[in-house]
């Protein structure tokens, strides 16, 4: 059984998840090194699916490799690159290798990546993908053809709590919940008020939907600017930008800000953990986790 499911469904423990760095060469040694670095802190880690519309080692094979080195994967599947047949075969491939945590998402557009000339697929959308995964978990493909025994999936999704239309984001999260999502990793959010309204709204209707907001470790004002300008759907308020820019040491200030956002997120209804994206890769992850009051697992 997945540790993520066990913790979220059968305990009140706070869970921590992260992104596995994209694999572009470096072989199994690089996977082993990254798995060893992340394992002490995280319950499960996302095996991404061509993040930001850049080609990398595939989601399924990355998830299998992570598992080989003892790191529990949450295998992401995005709707941008594959049609419904390929998405179902991704899910079955995951199941074949004992991967149960799936996260289904729309995916950044091809224009966000380095091959904007590519054909975008979007044969199905994320809510439909979640529903199809649920149906497969009940023992049949979308066509109705049976799968015996049914694959065992623990389904997740992603929602952006801070992008317009704000009120509707709650309803969209609930649509994914009804389709079969049991946990939601939330997009990076620099608007604590919006995150709060979203979590309250969702928890009111679906108190058993596990929310996992994201915080990101960036180096300073430049990193924050990059999030604001380049990452689709992320807005950093001007006052937050100014606070970091005008600090005597922006690198320290941005860490302080991230810690505040993380602590606030953990107080919100429905929130059962944190997703941490590390863009610094300079050892500050350990410091950040220590500041949150955590110690590494042995």
């Amino acid at each position, binding site marked *: 059984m997945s540790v993520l499911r066990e913790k979220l469904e059968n305990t009140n423990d706070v869970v921590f998840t992260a992104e596995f760095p994209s694999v572009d060469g470096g072989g199994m040694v690089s996977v082993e090194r990254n798995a060893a670095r992340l394992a002490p802190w995280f319950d499960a880690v996302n095996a991404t699916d061509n993040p930001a519309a850049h080609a990398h080692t595939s989601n399924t094979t990355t998830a299998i490799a992570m598992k080989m080195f003892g790191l529990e994967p949450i295998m992401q599947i995005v709707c941008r690159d594959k049609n419904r047949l390929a998405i179902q075969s991704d899910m079955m491939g995951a199941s074949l290798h004992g991967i149960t945590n799936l996260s289904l998402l729309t995916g950044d557009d091809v224009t966000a990546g380095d091959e904007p000339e590519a054909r975008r697929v979007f044969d199905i959308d994320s809510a*439909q993908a979640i529903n199809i995964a649920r149906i497969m978990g009940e023992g049949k493909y979308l066509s109705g053809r049976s799968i015996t025994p049914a694959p065992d999936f623990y389904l997740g999704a992603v929602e*952006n709590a801070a*992008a317009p239309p704000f009120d509707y984001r709650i309803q969209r999260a609930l649509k994914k919940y009804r389709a079969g999502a049991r946990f939601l990793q939330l997009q990076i959010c620099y608007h604590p008020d919006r995150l709060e309204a979203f979590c309250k709204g969702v928890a009111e209707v679906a108190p058993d939907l596990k929310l996992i907001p994201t915080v990101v470790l960036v180096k300073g004002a430049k990193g924050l600017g990059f999030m604001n300008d380049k990452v689709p759907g992320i807005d950093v308020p001007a006052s937050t930008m100014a606070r970091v820019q005008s600090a005597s040491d922006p690198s320290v200030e941005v860490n302080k800000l991230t810690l505040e956002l993380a602590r606030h997120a953990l107080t919100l209804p429905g929130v059962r953990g944190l997703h941490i994206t590390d863009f610094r890769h300079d050892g500050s992850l350990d410091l950040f986790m220590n500041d949150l009051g955590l110690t590494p697992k042995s």
Partner: protein
Amino acid sequence: MLKKLLPFVEHALKAPVWDCRMCGQCVLHSTGMTCPMTCPKTLRNGPCGGVRENGNCEVIPEMQCIWVKAYDRTISLPLPKVWKEHYNELRPPVDMQLQGTSSWINLVTKRDQQVPDGWSVQGSEH
């Protein structure tokens, strides 16, 4: 004859108003009279996470996100209550076999309600 003629008539009427893409399974009534097939990602179940702070599209920055528009219109337009209630339903995957056919015919024959045998929806839809 009608089967050949109607797609032309439908397209001639719906293209100028809704930028109709002739998916053959029209859901305009449930999306605040806003066509989801004009979303660059052709999303049928709500906006992606890439909507800009000003409510515009991730892919086409000068265009308002069609789901922002659909949401505003569902609230503000004097549409029948039952149509508004359909806004939140989980719409099934597009049937690519219907591309280019008349959604009017498909509505009358209920062809647009056919879904794959495995498709099912759980929980309250409204």
